[in-house]
């Protein structure tokens, strides 16, 4: 991986960040300039005037999911794609997740890092190390055990919901736009944060895995009903729409990354995921349509890619999705369906442009797995990356090895340090995001201010005394941001 800076440089860069007088006065000037506009919209009072004024603002008429007024819909995503270079990839063979690490470092090394993780875990518990005490591990293990081990994840809908055939009535018929809003409304109630739609065509089908994590192939056939056998899962050609949705993670809990508590919020999201998927599949079945889900976590298709095409966010420097509403604090899932749905357009919220300047995630990455290049690039780092688009491709192997030899859990530092990973109790964050969406002029200053304002690490012992809301997430913030 071509990193222009060394680890020493990283450290220096991190430590030398601060507020210069120049930045301070720029902030004051910028604040005075945009304060009136941002302040007026922050509390929702005059939102429509601003929404109307923003050319191309992503607030579709009649949609229950209005985006923040500063998010623009665009015809092409901010991630440049060369569909000619793309082809369907095997999740099982190509990614580094789970047992995939052995494909790149060998069975012996994979076992070795697994043994290191187990030994470190035990020793840390015995040492009563803050953040790695027995209660922290118990939280982490229990947060994830339902999603990872006992979840009713299924490619085909689960039995139980009455279909129109069962009732002897015709199936639901609505326009694609009506259907889209209806699905959003239902999924919000099931626990999804944002919901978008992608139409499957010859290009976007390339984002469906050729092989799921369990080794079964995923194929398209001209059949009426989806089916599954020991070797393959079959998507009917008529199932042309992908429902892409996000689930919130807790910013506050992720601030404890890396470690069992920080990783716990990822696990909690994955525990909610099967319920949302099963409910949505059941809802579609109840309408008379098919909902084809992920047979396991990270199955069916490439989540960030679908997220970008559905307009749920933009690709960040950490090579994951960053959303306007929740920053990187989401997991992204997808369901294929034959219910006609109006596709949602990609967005430009200035996020990828911000990442070109920011680099905080790369500086803070303990395994030096993220890129420092100013611009995203076409060349992949390894086979685990999927070529055909410009991105800041990451070194997933060094990342995964750190997971095992470092915290012994998934890491998440790149999520937690992201300037977009902020709560929205103060308008300041909205103002910064809105300004970054319109101009790159202040991006460097915003990064420096983010560091200087002390959004730093948390004491893991304090987390156990926090009075956090359900799931550690704020389900009101989406409504607040629909201004």
């Amino acid at each position, binding site marked *: 991986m071509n990193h222009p800076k060394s680890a020493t440089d990283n450290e220096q860069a991190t430590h030398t960040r601060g507020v210069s007088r120049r930045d301070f006065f720029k902030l004051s000037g910028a604040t005075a300039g945009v304060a009136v506009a941002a302040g007026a919209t922050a509390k929702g009072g005059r939102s429509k005037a601003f929404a109307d004024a923003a050319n191309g603002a992503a607030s579709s008429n009649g949609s229950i999911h209005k985006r923040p007024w500063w998010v623009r819909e665009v015809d092409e995503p901010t991630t440049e794609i060369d569909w000619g270079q793309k082809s369907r990839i095997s999740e099982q063979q190509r990614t580094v997740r789970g047992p995939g690490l052995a494909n790149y470092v060998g069975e012996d090394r994979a076992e070795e890092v697994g043994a290191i993780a187990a030994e470190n875990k035990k020793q840390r518990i015995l040492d009563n190390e803050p953040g790695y005490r027995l209660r922290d591990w118990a939280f982490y293990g229990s947060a994830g055990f339902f999603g990872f081990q006992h979840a009713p994840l299924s490619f085909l809908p689960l039995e139980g919901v009455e279909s129109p055939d069962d009732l002897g009535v015709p199936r639901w018929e609505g326009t694609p736009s009506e259907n889209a809003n209806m699905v959003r409304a239902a999924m919000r109630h099931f626990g999804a944060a944002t919901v978008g739609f992608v139409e499957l065509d010859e290009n976007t089908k390339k984002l469906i895995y050729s092989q799921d994590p369990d080794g079964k192939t995923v194929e398209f056939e001209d059949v009426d009903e989806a089916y599954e056998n020991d070797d393959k899962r079959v998507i009917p050609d008529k199932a042309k729409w992908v429902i892409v949705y996000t689930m919130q993670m807790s910013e506050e809990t992720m601030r404890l990354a890396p470690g069992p508590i920080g990783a716990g919020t990822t696990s909690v999201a994955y525990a909610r995921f099967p319920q949302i998927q099963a409910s949505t599949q059941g809802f579609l079945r109840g309408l008379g349509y098919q909902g084809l889900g992920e047979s396991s976590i990270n199955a069916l298709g490439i989540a960030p890619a679908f997220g970008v095409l559905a307009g749920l966010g933009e690709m960040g420097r950490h090579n994951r999705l960053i959303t306007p509403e929740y920053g990187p604090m989401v997991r992204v899932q997808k369901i294929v369906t034959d219910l006609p749905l109006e596709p949602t357009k990609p967005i430009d919220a200035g996020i990828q442009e911000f990442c070109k300047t920011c680099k905080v995630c790369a500086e803070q990455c303990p395994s030096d797995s993220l890129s420092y290049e100013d611009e995203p690039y076409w060349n992949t780092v390894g086979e685990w990356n999927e070529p055909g688009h410009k991105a800041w491709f990451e070194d997933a192997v060094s990342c995964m090895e750190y997971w095992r030899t470092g915290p012994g859990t998934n890491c998440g530092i790149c999520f937690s340090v992201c300037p977009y990973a902020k709560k929205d109790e103060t308008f300041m964050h909205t103002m910064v995001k809105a300004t970054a969406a319109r101009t790159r002029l202040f991006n460097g200053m915003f990064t420096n201010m983010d560091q200087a*304002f002390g959004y730093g690490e948390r004491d893991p012992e304090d987390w156990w005394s926090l009075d956090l809301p359900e799931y550690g997430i704020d389900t009101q913030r989406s409504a607040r941001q629909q201004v």
Partner: protein
Amino acid sequence: MFWFIIGIIVGAGGFALIQRTRRPDVPTTWYGWVLGIAAAVLGLLAVEAFTGSFAELEPTAAWMSLLALGLPAIILGALAWYLPRRTAPSDTVPGDDLIEDRPESEQSAL
């Protein structure tokens, strides 16, 4: 409720300010109003960012916000008060405005 109370305070303060500036002896200029309004907006934003950051469990950010927004608010507020007086004719500056009301003997002494 917090912003309701802030609104009452700001409304009452604004009303009192307008009443005061309607007096002929109080100098007002357009840039004084601009600076004063900017100071008030920045002050409100400082309060909002301060309380919001505490709600986000970010005390350092709260105090930094108060500094970054509150300090310019105070400076602009001081300029809004000072500059019109500096450029106004002396007979409209408060403090000098009661000379004519004083006894004739005191006026001649002045």
